[in-house]
């Protein structure tokens, strides 16, 4: 299938690499971001510290205005931090962008309407001068992975919203990035499509071994997908807690399936994230001690 090409990029031991700061996919140290607006200075992010290991799936969750999208934009080098230090695979974010170390997907698919599905997926490859034969085979693999092979020659306006989003995800994977940045990519989808896409994404992330930074405001989505959930609070945007997901003896994310959504450990985690979101300092029902509980940045 698609695996042979996509697997080559990154570590097979990725999910276990937590704590390895040298190879960190993303390292954020004391980052502040302020916006100058007509009504004064807005502190979008304050004193953010976060490390995402290679192959790790980290979700950013929080209410609107908590700066989760801003943080992702900083990592993507679409914005610059006011102060602090950001690196992606040990490089500056600008260098990482120039080196195409990450793939990105936004809330809207953002496909080019005049290009077919296949041509949309091929766009980054075309821009970076990948030879056309190589391009064709990679596009075929990617479309196979997102299940859109039959739609290769359609145009975006002939697809449903979910299909468009799958094309966008295939496009973000086109250059086999070791890091995927996703800003509420399933936000505009209906619940059924959403769950299917989540299951697909878990599989794809596991297949490719890519680290993922995933912005969402759905708690179940964050729990289902992530190794760790970063809970943020607004005004100023801060990390209030980082909750590691412990989902019933499942060691690899690739093992996660739809059944997980009905397990008690899933609900425990949902509760824990919810309490963290609502500023709950009170303890959650889980009884074993959690090592990385409550990373307070203040």
């Amino acid at each position, binding site marked *: 299938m698609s695996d042979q090409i996509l697997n080559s990029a990154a570590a097979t031991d990725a999910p276990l690499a937590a704590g390895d700061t040298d190879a960190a996919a993303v390292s954020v140290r004391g980052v502040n971001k302020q916006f100058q607006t007509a009504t004064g200075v807005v502190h979008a992010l304050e004193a953010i510290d976060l490390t995402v290991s290679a192959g790790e799936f980290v979700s950013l969750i929080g209410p609107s205005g908590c700066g989760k999208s801003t943080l992702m934009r900083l990592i*993507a*080098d*679409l914005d610059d931090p006011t102060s602090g230090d950001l690196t992606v695979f040990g490089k500056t974010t600008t260098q990482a*962008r*120039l080196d*195409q170390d*990450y793939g*990105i997907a*936004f809330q*809207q*698919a*953002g*496909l*080019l*309407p*005049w290009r077919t599905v296949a041509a949309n997926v091929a*766009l*980054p490859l*075309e*821009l*970076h001068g990948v030879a056309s034969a190589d391009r064709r085979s990679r596009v075929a693999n990617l479309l196979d992975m997102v299940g859109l092979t039959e739609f290769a020659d359609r*145009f*975006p*306006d*002939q*697809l*449903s*919203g979910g299909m*468009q989003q799958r094309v966008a995800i295939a496009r973000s994977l086109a250059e086999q990035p070791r890091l995927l940045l996703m800003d509420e990519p399933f936000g505009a989808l209906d619940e059924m499509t959403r769950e299917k896409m989540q299951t697909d994404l878990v599989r794809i992330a596991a297949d490719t071994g890519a680290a993922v930074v995933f912005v969402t405001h759905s708690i179940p989505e964050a729990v289902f997908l992530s190794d760790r959930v970063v809970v943020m609070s607004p005004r100023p945007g801060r990390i209030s807690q980082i909750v590691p997901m412990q989902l019933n003896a499942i060691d690899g994310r690739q093992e996660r399936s739809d059944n997980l959504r009905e397990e008690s450990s899933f609900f425990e985690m949902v509760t824990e994230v919810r309490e963290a979101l609502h500023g709950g300092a009170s303890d959650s029902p889980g009884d074993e001690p959690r090592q990385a509980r409550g990373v307070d940045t203040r």
Partner: protein
Amino acid sequence: MTARPRLVGGFVWGLAGVLLIALAWEGYKFFGPADGLSIGELRVLPRTTDLAMPHLWDMMARLAEPVTRAEGALPLWAVVALAALTTLGIAAAGWAVGVVVGVGFALLMQRWRLAEFGLLPWIVISQTVPLIAFAPVVKSWGSRVEIGSFEWQDWMSVALIASYLAFFPITVGALKGLQSPDRIHLELFETYASGYWSTLKQLRFPAAVPYLLPALRLGAANAVIGAVVAEVSTGLQGGIGRLLIQFAGQASGDPAKAWGPIFGAIVLGLVAAGSVALLSVILKDYRRTEEAA
């Protein structure tokens, strides 16, 4: 699927429109007062005499007759067609220059905000200069241009004036089109570390097509009008503008003849706009939008 019936439908409606105008013409000629209607000195309705309003069938019949009584004279329609072709050629040259200049200005203004602030007001003002006023000036300037073996021809003055009218809508349309890509697309290209030229080629130009096509069509219509008017005011021989004036002068003796070049000018405008429509068929994929159907 629906393209063919819509095409046929459009054709039928177009024909119905022409028929309606013909009916109005003949109807007024039949029922209207022979001397028109005047309020005081002001005539508000035209005369309906054969001199002022010839029958449509007379105009059509006149088209088939020879242009003059001279031996071996061409039929009127052929003379009109030849003149229209000449004008079309000049207008096309003017349009092409207008496209180059218009897109050039748009690129400049898209690239540098400062250029937009500095140029756009002047471009707008340029269109307020009455064309007839400076057509003779262009001609007299042109007649002094002589670079090596290149000598300025009179038709070039006409083409220049046509381009002067054509470039304006193209500039405005192209600028709007080049500025049209969504932020999400621009940021996507930024994440691809795509430079100015590749973003221009892969994003800005394709996104500009839906804005450019109507602008090009408007430019084509303007180029035709500019060419006809410039022919009249520079007195260039051989084109439809000259023919309009010449035959209008003979209208007292041969009223139907004056309508020949008018029909020619109408067909000329349609052909010019139609050629651009052809372009939009070729570029139809670029007129899609992202929304699901």
